[in-house]
């Protein structure tokens, strides 16, 4: 269980990017974090992953404070799929996925178990056929699936994804979202995802955390809470503007 209790954070004595954020994530849950640019979505994710110097006893993982975890032990619980991938070298897809096993052992080659986990992850993400291709040559959607497979090979129960469909065309967005939904429903994997697309939160189901100015604006079941009205309020749009412009996706409620 990930438990966030009154989490606040500011960069270099600036204004609070996160202000008194609290929520919990159970094993097997799907949570989408929605909110306008600069509302603190990515900062929240980085705080949970231990990338930021947050106050003690504000983030608890399996009832233990985040600061009690070493990086290796944290990696066994949380996996991360970043918005942009850092590889500058043409690693093969298999090599990228095997990197998910770094926390398991640091020395020598890959064991039979490492290779087995990588094979399973490639299969779950349905990218076994890409195993020998260069990661740099793949489409955006395929790259996301590779990094999701790497997170699966890491064998961590929680996967945190920062805007996983950002910059992808429609077919690649569909590819990633369908894979996430399948992994969540069939393999009971837990996803915490930030997104700018309310319709994606509705499609994936589970819970939605709406954030505004660093605080939690609303929290509830994605399919009930994500309506054109709440979305307009969240993004400070005139009431009815989305409908007027014909921009309300069919899956959003109109209440």
């Amino acid at each position, binding site marked *: 269980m990930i438990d966030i209790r009154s989490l606040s954070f500011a960069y270099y004595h600036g204004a609070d990017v996160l202000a008194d954020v609290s929520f919990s994530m159970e094993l097997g849950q799907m949570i989408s974090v929605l909110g306008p640019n600069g509302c603190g979505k990515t900062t929240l994710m*980085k705080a949970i*992953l*231990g*990338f930021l110097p947050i106050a003690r006893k504000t983030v608890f993982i399996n009832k233990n404070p985040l600061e009690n975890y*070493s*990086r*290796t032990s*944290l*990696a*066994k619980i*949380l*996996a*991360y799929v*970043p918005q942009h*991938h*850092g*590889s*500058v*070298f*043409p*690693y*093969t897809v298999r*090599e990228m996925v095997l*990197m*998910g*096993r*770094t*926390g398991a*052992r*640091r*020395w*020598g*080659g*890959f064991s039979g178990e490492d290779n087995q986990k990588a094979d399973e992850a490639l299969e779950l993400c349905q990218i076994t056929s890409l195993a020998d291709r260069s990661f740099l040559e793949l489409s955006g959607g395929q790259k996301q699936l590779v990094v999701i497979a790497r997170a699966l090979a*890491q064998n961590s129960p929680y996967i945190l994804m920062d805007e996983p469909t950002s910059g992808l065309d429609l077919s690649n967005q569909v590819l990633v979202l369908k894979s996430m939904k399948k992994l969540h429903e069939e393999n009971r994997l837990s996803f915490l995802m930030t997104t700018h697309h309310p319709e994606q939160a509705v499609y994936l189901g589970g819970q939605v955390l709406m954030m505004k100015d660093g605080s939690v604006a609303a929290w509830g079941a994605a399919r009930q809470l994500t309506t054109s009205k709440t979305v307009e309020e969240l993004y400070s749009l005139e009431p009815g503007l989305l409908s007027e412009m014909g921009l309300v996706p069919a899956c959003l409620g109109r209440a």
Partner: protein
Amino acid sequence: MNKRFIGFLSVSLLLALVLVMPVGRYPVTVPEIIKALTAHISGQTLSAREDQIVLLFLTVRLPRLLAAVLVGASLSLSGAVYQSIFRNPLVSPGILGVLAGASTGAAVGIVIFSSWPLTQVLSLIGGLAGVGVSLSLAKLYPKSPMLALLVGGLVSTSFFTAVTSLFKYLADTENQLPELTYWLMGTLSRTSWNQLLWVGPFMILGITYLSASGRVVNALSLGDEEAMSLGLNSRHERLKFICLATLVCSCSVVITGIINWVGLVIPHVVRLIIGPNNLTLLPASGLLGAAFVLLTDTVVRSVWTAEFPLGIFTSIICLPLFAFSLWRDRTRR
């Protein structure tokens, strides 16, 4: 394929070591060397020629061959590590200012203190200062980190070269200046057991540790956040690898002076052949670098009557090799 390539390189390096043993001004064959050494070890009485062979092999050739292997492996391996952890395939110990900084430190040790342990420590401090200046300058321009690191390295190299020049200017023109100038050109002709005993163990430990660190270096090559999410304390790990790579480079500078390009070109060539996976790239770079310096040094000391500095020849050979690897890389993409 990759494991087979490492096996091939290991066998080639061993074969090259055996084949270059008899090469030099004094004509001798491998069986003669083996026979003389066996007799020497078993305590038999040696003939005058055997005595000469043992003396030549143990005091001149063996330390030189070992030094060539260690220097080549150090430069090439550390180049591969720098390229991966800085996520920049264009950096190398020479380009990052490590060699220039280590040379300055070593020059201070030679000119002022004339002490091997102190020269080694000062060389390491100089090497760390060299890479430290490059990184600090690169951080001032975060918009283009790759380019900034190259320019930072250029400035750092220029600065430490200037400081070394200052020491050359101040050095005694009769003895110290020619010695310093010749040493800076890169040469293995002055290798001694004394040097090897001081720096060899550090180089062997560093080379072994770096060669076996492929898994961690792979993760670091993805950037800090991804490396952290994969279970690494990336800042601590990165610093550790910078120090280790700089240590083995600085040790190589203590032995040979500046040998440029090996740390840039050899990892490029290896990456072209077996790909970027550091699990195999690191040991393969070390092995190919060792074989490259060993063979180049053998050519340098045996083809002409006068011995040319090794550094000049590695640069001449590496330049077209680097151009070829860039061209090949471009045509493959």
